[in-house]
């Protein structure tokens, strides 16, 4: 009985030691991972700051104006002027479409389609 107890205790000690070492290594690995991720976050933040700066640089008003001038033929962009404001009632309704269906019979009715809502 006693020897059984000794063997169990010894096995338990070995098991616990194995578990403790295991946990220790896992913790160390986790710490290394965290450090790596932190460094990566730092690097990405730095990159983000550079990208923001680049975005601001590429969107600087001088450049946008030069681009708008260069592409005036295609885009037709002009500075915003008071005349460009309008009221809703100044805008025309889209012209009513006159629908011509395919002529099938001898007598066909042709007409305007009213859109009712």
């Amino acid at each position: 009985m006693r020897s059984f107890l000794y063997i169990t205790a010894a096995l338990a000690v070995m098991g616990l030691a194995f578990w403790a070492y295991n946990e220790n290594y896992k913790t160390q690995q986790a710490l290394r991972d965290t450090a790596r991720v932190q460094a990566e976050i730092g690097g990405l933040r730095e990159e983000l700051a550079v990208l923001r700066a680049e975005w601001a640089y590429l969107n600087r008003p001088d450049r946008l104006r030069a681009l708008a001038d260069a592409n005036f033929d295609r885009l037709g962009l002009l500075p915003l002027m008071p005349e460009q404001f309008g009221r809703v009632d100044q805008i025309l309704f889209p012209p009513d479409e006159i629908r011509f269906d395919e002529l099938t019979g001898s007598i066909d009715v042709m007409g305007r389609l009213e859109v009712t809502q």
Partner: protein
Amino acid sequence: MTRRPLRPLAHILLARQRGENPDVIERENIRQRHEVMRDKARQRAESRLLVLAAVFLLGFMVVGARMASLASSVPHEPELGFSESEIVAQRSDILDRNGRILATNLITNSLYAQPQIMIDKERAARELAMIFPELDYAELVRDFTGPRKFLWIKRRISPEQQQLVHDIGDPGLLFGPREMRLYPNGRLAAHVLGGAAFGREGVHSAEIIGVAGVEKTFDDFLRDPAENGAPLQLSLDLTIQTAAERVLAGGMKLMNARGAAAVLMDVNTGEVISLVSLPDFDPNTRPALPTGGAAADSPLFNHAVQGLYELGSTFKIFTVAQALDQGLVTPDTMVDTRGPLKWGRYSIRDFHDYGKQLSVNDVIVKSSNIGSARLAMDIGAEAQKTFLGQLGLLEPTPIEMVEARGARPLRPSNWSEISAMTISYGHGLSASPLHLAAAYSSLVNGGHLVKPTLLHQNGAAQGERVISAETSAVIRKMLRQVVVEGTATFGDVPGYSVGGKTGTADKPKPQGGYYEDRVIATFAAVFPTDRPRFVLVVTLDEPEETSGEEPRRTAGWTAVPVGAEMIRRMAPLLGLRPEIEPSAGDLLKLTSN
């Protein structure tokens, strides 16, 4: 241990035989027993003390060892747990009111050399001179072969240049990381931002310190790690600033002016939406301070904040506002305008002769010097001084720029009656365009004092009252009349109900007296006048409009058209839609309801 009885029978019997007192034996035994007990107790106490001392010693040793290790080890960031710090640069960004970047940082490298570990000094110098054309080959060779052990070659280099230097492959050419301040928009708002420069420099890092503008005013805030990189948000609007600079630069060229300044201010909050001073500079490569010549000729000079000018007739509105607010006159009161008005050896004249008398309204609309001088005589010098002081025209503006602190308005040392009369039409008191913008805002917004600020505000804080709301409404109507039928008819922008006042003042000569043919032309405008939102002050330095037969220099021909074009361009961007002006009939209906 066998316990010894206190009265051992053998000893007692023996003592009785001898006729001695057996109690003596008992006492002796008790004494011996007590001695043993005492020794035991002492021993135990001593051992306890020893243990306690050991525990304390151990404790102190642990604390000491920890202190020693903290003191001698290199600090490092805690690795566990989520770090909320977002600081990537030593200086935080500056943003405009919509969050667009005005100033940020880039990480670059500096290049330095350690000649004693260089291998081929001649070749390194030759290749460096090829990469950086501004470096001199002969000078580099002299530096490399001289006794110096360390020398800076370039403060900031680009990644491409760094690669080229790497390709030289000399171990004595080394790089140190550097942060640099970047203003991505170039010249935009250069005077407001100011600029930054390197402070203390080491191999591995360098301090960046603000040298002017908001960079200097908010240096502590921008560099404070406790702020966790929080950006500084200004009240400027990038889009509007761009439009303002472009139109003003065009106007300055067209009017052949030497310099120009414009301030656009929110009348309710005092936020400066746009502040332009021309000529300007690029804060990325801030020019050196001028060593000779007038300070005002340097592009670094901020005409809008530092420039103190006699702003001319724009001051008349202050005189009239005070006279109206004190109940001395009404807009229809007639004022004597027969000229010239003599006071001692001085005489005051008008630009044109306006006849015998004008109504107070017309004194503003036609801009009569004599009329406003007479009003100033009614008001009195002391009261005028107090009122202008209330409007902030006698002290430097509280705007957050280091340059503003030095711009203390120039005023007469003795505020006599003749001073009051000339100041009533803007001569004898010099203030900056920013002063004027703030004072106009206070007058037209309903009568509350506003303080100019460059920081983005949330909602208006009502300042103390300077004039009544009714006077403010009358003033706005008068300013509108100036544009409709007075001296600023070029200032009308259809749909925006612009009101304003012109001012043309002769430039003082440095040696005393005034120039005949050099003026400062100012246009102070408010729009829209029925619901005032913004005040715009445009100042042109020595403008000359040459389309006519003879050059025209009055503000109505120079500053006003420029100001009107600025409003036309900026108002839609400010989110104001053009409106058909309410006619007088509409106003009556509104008030009767």
